[in-house]
């Protein structure tokens, strides 16, 4: 048992979902705002947006333990993918996006990074028992 524990399943799930939707929204913004849109960027953004929205929806489907948990796992995979892919996309010159190489001062990218870190942070607190997610219950009697 951890020395800090919360029983806020809805709040935690809402906060994590807000971060995930923020990640999706920033990808949508990137898609709309980008001057050059190579095909693979459109596909990547589409996958991230749909993936995030589906993961958010799954975290609220309380039919059994598996579906909400799958939503959290899917969200974590998307965030991890972004957190690994984003620095690579700055370091490696991507076809059609060479102007972004070495640019770390782009607000949407850094905000998206913050969203991904926030989601993963919350997910870790759920995994370590500090928080519980929607669908889980605390067995406290005292």
């Amino acid at each position: 048992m951890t020395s800090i524990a919360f029983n806020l399943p809805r709040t935690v799930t809402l906060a994590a979902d807000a971060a995930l939707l923020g990640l999706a929204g920033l990808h949508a913004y990137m898609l709309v705002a980008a001057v050059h849109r190579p095909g693979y960027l459109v596909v990547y953004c589409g996958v991230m947006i749909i993936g995030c929205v589906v993961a958010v929806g799954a975290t609220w489907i309380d039919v059994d333990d598996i579906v909400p948990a799958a939503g959290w796992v899917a969200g974590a995979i998307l965030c991890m993918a972004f957190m690994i892919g984003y620095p690579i996309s700055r370091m490696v010159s991507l076809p059609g996006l060479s102007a972004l190489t070495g640019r770390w001062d782009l607000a949407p990218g850094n905000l998206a990074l913050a969203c991904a870190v926030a989601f993963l942070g919350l997910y870790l607190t759920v995994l370590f028992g500090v928080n519980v997610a929607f669908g889980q219950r605390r067995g406290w009697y005292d």
Partner: protein
Amino acid sequence: MLLDYPAWLRIDHWLNVLFLTLLLRSGFEILSTHPKLYWHADSAPGTEWARFTRKVMPTNKLYDTLDEEEDYHPLIALPGHRELGMGRHWHFAAVIGWILLGTTYYILLFATGQWHRYWPYSWSIFTEAWNDIVTYACFNLPPLLPGEPLDAIQKLTYAAVIFVLAPFQILTGAAQSPAIEARFPRYVRLFGGRQAARSLHFLGLLAFVVFIVIHLAMVFFWGWGRLTALMIFGSVRNAYWATGLSLLIIAAIVAVHIAATLWSQRSPSSVRRVLGALISLPRKGLLRRLDSRQNYPVRMLSTEHRVNGKPPTAEFYKVMAVHNFVDWRLRVGGLVEQPMTLDLAGLRALAEPQTQRVLHNCVQGWTSVGEWTGLPLGTLVDLVQPLPQARYICFMSMQDNSTDEPSAEGGGQFYEILDLKLAHKPQMLLAYVMNGQPLPIKHGAPLRLRAETQVGFKMAKWINQIEFVDDYAHIGKGRGGWREDNVYYGMDGEI
């Protein structure tokens, strides 16, 4: 209007650092004694939304809230190591200092026109604040507002902290005073109830911690030397000196914390005496005059009323309990004209019973709602007729903490002393019935005190003797009660 850094603003800033950090650490000490947070006034076990403890209470034997106390390290709590009495003294003394400082700050802010630095004159400031966030997200520093010392997001944040968060903390803190709750139950309901106020107070504390972290990060990124020069010299000059002096001021604040911790650990009675003298001014001047006006609806009665303190284990008490306390006697004496010895039936026959549904405020922070029936204390006082020199009432309990309460900080017979002036206040009760049933053993059977403007420890349980005295210097350790003697609580329980 020149929005600069006048001397009063700089002095207030550094004093604010001192008081705020004292408040944070002593706040954590208070939290440690009941490290659980609730939204509902009954603090029902298992309903907490947050807990800061590893302890799991047993299901197969009686435990009380003393067993739930945690021991926090002095690095985060003042003074640390389960010293609620000390933590309360530091918290309340720092609150007084902080409120006085805040009042001077507000007055000077408006008197000198410096309030313009925080006042958002146009809705466009929100767009500018968003732009500032985006600029920070680009790892750049946004421009300051024209002719002002802050950027838009800083201006909004400082305004929120100074005009919203700080008053919010004071208001939610006040909502936890038993005297204020008893007199203004609706005020407490504004925050969603007593436990919601406590939870909100904690969230406010967290907001301050987050603010401090971001504030320090901002000072670092904008230039520690430059900004501390503004807050020390009033202008950007001598950045190296400013850096050195700022570190010296911080070291002095840390030294005050270390001194406060060591003083509290080594000489708690002198801390109690010195800080208690300061705290008693608003306590007696403002809170003592408040009368309880509580009448909670039946639906709000707590299903499980929490309890602090374990029942007597002495053989004579167990025998009395087995026989429904027919052998119990209450001796009322001391400085009175008509001393009395009463059994339970005699006590009940003294006057028409009075019933009250009220919120119980434990000094640890939890609350429960109960219905109590019994004899108004004022009626008993009138019957025994105190002599002119009588000033206090001493309630003696059958509980012996040497044997009955392993979690207690000391031993000996439990007693509490009340100012005689309190006896005729409304809802001061010698209760023998709880929630329509004879007073349960764990809640003080056969007789306990209810003093609704006071924190719970003043309401002695398992009473068998009441003495009227002119002074309490020679009772126990002379501090006005068992908890005062052993845990260094203040004698007055209005907050």
